């Protein structure tokens, strides 16, 4: 599917949510579709998958409030008393707080960097004719095709040579570099859809190219920036492979995803299930809450983002 189509998809998606939101409407009786048994079965399956999709997450959250000893005896109990000891343990002793901060710091550099550099390249590719335009576009678009895993060994030594291994700046640059292909691809398609007359008017009024970009075109591209911003935010926040390969030397600089994987291993020795579940909850509840508030934008951002 081409980029313009995926952009269309983004725009048409809002309609689709509406058919589902009609549960309160009166259903005329006796007008059921054929295959009543099938219908019951299908609906039961829908409910079953709700349990499947949310069940493990709810189970983790409930258990994060329970005592480690109790969890081992019975995986399904309810918390007998609300104690937040697990959370304080996970936050300070298992270093989840530090890991979350590390992730936040890296993201604070990589996300704005990705958005800015990606938009800059995309804008030039989309709206200027120059020799090599097509080549540069294909260079970026081609980057979406190949797996990071192939590049990881040489990348490790490139980082090492630049002294960027096990540093936050290095991770930021790697995140930006590997987010650029899709960001540029998506934003190029987006900038092409914007009317050129506005930019022309700005030029006639004497605005420089740079000014036209920052003050006219970038604000006009806000819907696209939001979609790709959500895509990059979740992708970079959840990134596991790059930090594992490029940032595993200093334990105190580990990111949240690394910290959780580590906690899962150490929990095996110490049997501190409570702290593990609390750590998992700390990592996933904020993301889930944000998702539920902005669920339409997140769904659109991710699905528009994935269909290349």
């Amino acid at each position: 599917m081409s980029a313009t189509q995926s952009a269309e998809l983004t725009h048409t998606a809002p309609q689709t949510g509406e058919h589902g939101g009609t549960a309160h409407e009166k259903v005329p009786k006796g007008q059921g579709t054929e295959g009543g048994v099938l219908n019951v079965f299908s609906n039961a399956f829908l409910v079953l998958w709700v349990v499947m999709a949310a069940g493990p997450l709810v189970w983790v959250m409930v258990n994060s409030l329970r005592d480690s000893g109790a969890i081992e005896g019975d995986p399904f109990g309810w918390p007998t008393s609300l104690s937040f000891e697990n959370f304080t343990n996970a936050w300070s002793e298992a270093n989840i707080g530090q890991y979350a901060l590390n992730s936040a710091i890296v993201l604070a550099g990589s996300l704005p960097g990705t958005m800015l550099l990606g938009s800059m390249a995309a804008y030039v590719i989309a709206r200027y004719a120059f020799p090599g335009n097509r080549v540069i576009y294909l260079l970026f678009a081609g980057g979406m095709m190949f797996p990071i895993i192939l590049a990881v060994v040489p990348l490790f030594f490139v980082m090492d040579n630049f002294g960027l291994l096990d540093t936050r700046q290095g991770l930021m640059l790697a995140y930006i570099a590997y987010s650029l292909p899709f960001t540029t691809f998506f934003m190029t398609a987006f900038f092409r859809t914007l009317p050129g007359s506005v930019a022309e008017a700005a030029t006639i009024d004497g605005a420089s190219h740079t000014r036209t970009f920052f003050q006219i075109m970038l604000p006009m591209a806000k819907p696209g920036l939001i979609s790709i911003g959500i895509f990059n935010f979740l992708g970079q926040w959840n990134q596991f492979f790059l930090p594992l390969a490029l940032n595993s030397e200093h334990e105190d600089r580990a990111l949240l995803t690394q910290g959780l994987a580590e906690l899962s291993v150490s929990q095996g020795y110490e049997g501190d299930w409570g702290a593990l579940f609390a750590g998992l909850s700390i990592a996933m509840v904020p993301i889930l809450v944000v998702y539920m508030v902005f669920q339409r934008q997140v769904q659109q951002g991710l699905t528009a983002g994935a269909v290349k």
Partner: protein
Amino acid sequence: MANDVRTVERKPTDTAPRKEEGTPLGDYPLYAAAFFLPPRLTPERVKNNRRYRALDTYRFICWFLLIPLVIYAIFVISPFLQAFYYSLTDWTGYSSDFAFVGLDNYARLLDDSTFWASMRNSLLLLVAAPVVTLGLGLFFAFMLQAGGRHKKNEAISGVRGAKFYKVVYFFPQVISVAIIGVVWAAMYDPITGPLNGILRAAGLGSLAQNWLADPKLALGSVLFVLCWMFIGFYVVLFSAAMGSIPKDIYEAALLDGASRPTTFFRVTLPLIWDTVQTGWIYMGIQALDAFAIVHIMTINKGGPGQSTLVTPVFLYKKAFDVGQAGYATAVGVVLLLVTMVFAAIMMLLSRRERIEY
């Protein structure tokens, strides 16, 4: 001088400009300087030249592309190209000296049973994961878009609470794959895990399994988590695609007396085929990767034995655990090749005329 230039510019016959006019040889350093200066600091003499607009545009293009391209070239393109070269060497990764060994690494791959075991697992996931994920995704999406009872003026409608389902199904997609790996490792835990807990509670204690420690079940357990992660994504994607199909097509199908399965196979599926095809390739690539969940969830990262070892994990172990960086990059090249072949086959197999609506 400046006046002259403007006069020249106004001439309508200026389509083929005489090269040197307005740019005396001595001005070239000035132009070079202007290229590296912001517009506001450009020397007046350059600004008044009729070719200034082109210079301004190219200066803008170059400066805007410079940083993204440099970062991209250093961290993405150069490692990618180096990988092909290193795959022909016996580089350990520990020291900087290595020898060119030609295709030795590839020959070694052919005889490496561990590699083949990993490839077998990867290909199994490549085939099974898209079938399960896209199949269930299509089923759920169709239910949410067209599974409901017919309401008064609507030929087709989703089930009650479709919006709610879509929100919940998408949960796994927003949380990190690292979290998913840890959560499911806990779910599968034979003693404290709820999976066996449910079986025991239902009186099926004999079915309780050592999910990740049994070589026969481990890969299936990984496959399930892989599908679990992505189904919500495809439900949302396919719902959006189905939602953009015009309602009157469904009305016509309904008038012709089409049942729901017929409607699905004859109307919905052909109309969203493009999306399904893209989704298939995307899911296949995700399944070929499957690095994080195997690395986090399974015993010894790919065990027990080699039962869940997938090719990316094999590559990672070769590169970073045993110091065979050259060999590992050869594995990477083969993996890339498999990905390409898979994508090409899928494109060719599912090629059909695009239906416009």
